[in-house]
């Protein structure tokens, strides 16, 4: 993970909050993943204007919890592995 590069949801996927399911979902051809609360929070920040470091800063502040840094990096690595997010090339 290049921690200073901006991240964005791959535009072949679609991320949205679903009232009926009370969670963020990620849609792709013929399928859907329901995201856990923390995964949803992280993915929602991948909007092309924030890097991994920015996201860590925002979330550790929001939840006043420094210990989540590793989880965030781990999740972002996995999300990138699955092509859910990509680097946003300006």
């Amino acid at each position: 993970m290049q921690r200073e590069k901006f991240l964005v949801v791959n535009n072949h996927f679609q991320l949205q909050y679903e009232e009926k399911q009370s969670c963020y979902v990620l849609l792709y051809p013929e399928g859907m993943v329901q995201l856990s609360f923390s995964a949803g929070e992280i993915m929602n920040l991948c909007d092309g204007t924030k890097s991994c470091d920015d996201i860590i800063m925002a979330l550790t502040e929001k939840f006043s919890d420094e210990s989540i840094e590793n989880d965030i990096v781990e999740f972002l690595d996995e999300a990138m592995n699955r092509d859910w997010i990509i680097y946003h090339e300006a």
Partner: protein
Amino acid sequence: MKLEKKIIKPPLWILLELTHKCPLECTYCYNQLDFANTKDMMSKEDWFKVMEEARAMGAVQLGISGGEPLLNKDLLEIVKKANDLKFYTNLITSGVGADISIVPKLKEAGLKTVQLGIQSPDEHTTTLITNNKTAFNDKMAFAKSCKDNGLQLIINTCITRQNIHQIGEIIEMAEKLGANYLEIANIQYYGWALENINALLPTRAQLDEAKAITNHYREHRKDMKVFFVVPDYFATRPKACMNGWGSTFLTINPDGVALPCNTANTLPLTFPNVKEHSVEAIWNDSEAFNYFRGDSWMREPCRTCDEKEKDFGGCRCQAYALTKDMHVADPVCDKSSFHHVVTDKVEESLSSSQEPIYRNKINSMNIIAGRLAKSCK
């Protein structure tokens, strides 16, 4: 008196079949044999209403199909509406039927994915399968335009005896076209495909080889995802059709008839029309959508089978088409007393030299007339 109300989960996936007209005449098409009777009755507003109602229930996936959806003049507005409602949109198309300039307009309307049917990497075989001389070139141009306009491209190739020898070249072609996914779909034998089974079913040896070639590709090159849909005629357990009747999936036909799967109106049931009822009432309360929910409709061997949660007794359309009783186990299952119907069909088709008939209006009308004549006797 029933105390508990059955809990019915909302549909997740809606398929709009905009029209059953089509410029191609694929021998393997699963559409209804009597499609000539299905008229285009849905206005743009009717489609909007269906989408709004389904979305309000929680549906998230929207497939736009047919027949050939490019023939519907309201297509762009339907896509735009779907996107505004936050559906994930997938246009399932042959790539033939509209001017190529529609592709950037589809992208602009918010389309996410194109699932493009390509039969073969060569013109001759494509013409043989589709009965259309320009289809191959149209498809190549359509695929290229999808990529040029940044649309996600899924190539769907339906596999039959007519093209199974080309698996390797099909994979090469899809990769050259820049497909994000390739779906190698060993066809399901419904509609025109079942009518033509004697001309289409490959041998088990051919299938094994196709599978081996696909696996070889998957191991050595990983940039394009390749799905291999296994054919159920060579299996001993049925597929979990539609993830269970009325559980996930809702199709709307060009005349507004709502179905729990693409071909459910081949069954002797009456299906409700979205022009007369709301999607919610149809999904939750109609007799047809409740008919095969749960397992109280099942007969032996399904009723007491420990696998019934896995496959729900298989496909109702296949059970009916092959046994004339829609309540029995899908005869693909080797526990079914009708399993021999499948194995007999396999055997018969492999020694047959029958020519396929094309999926077109004249053949459809002939089939309808033939059925009428039979029922008058």
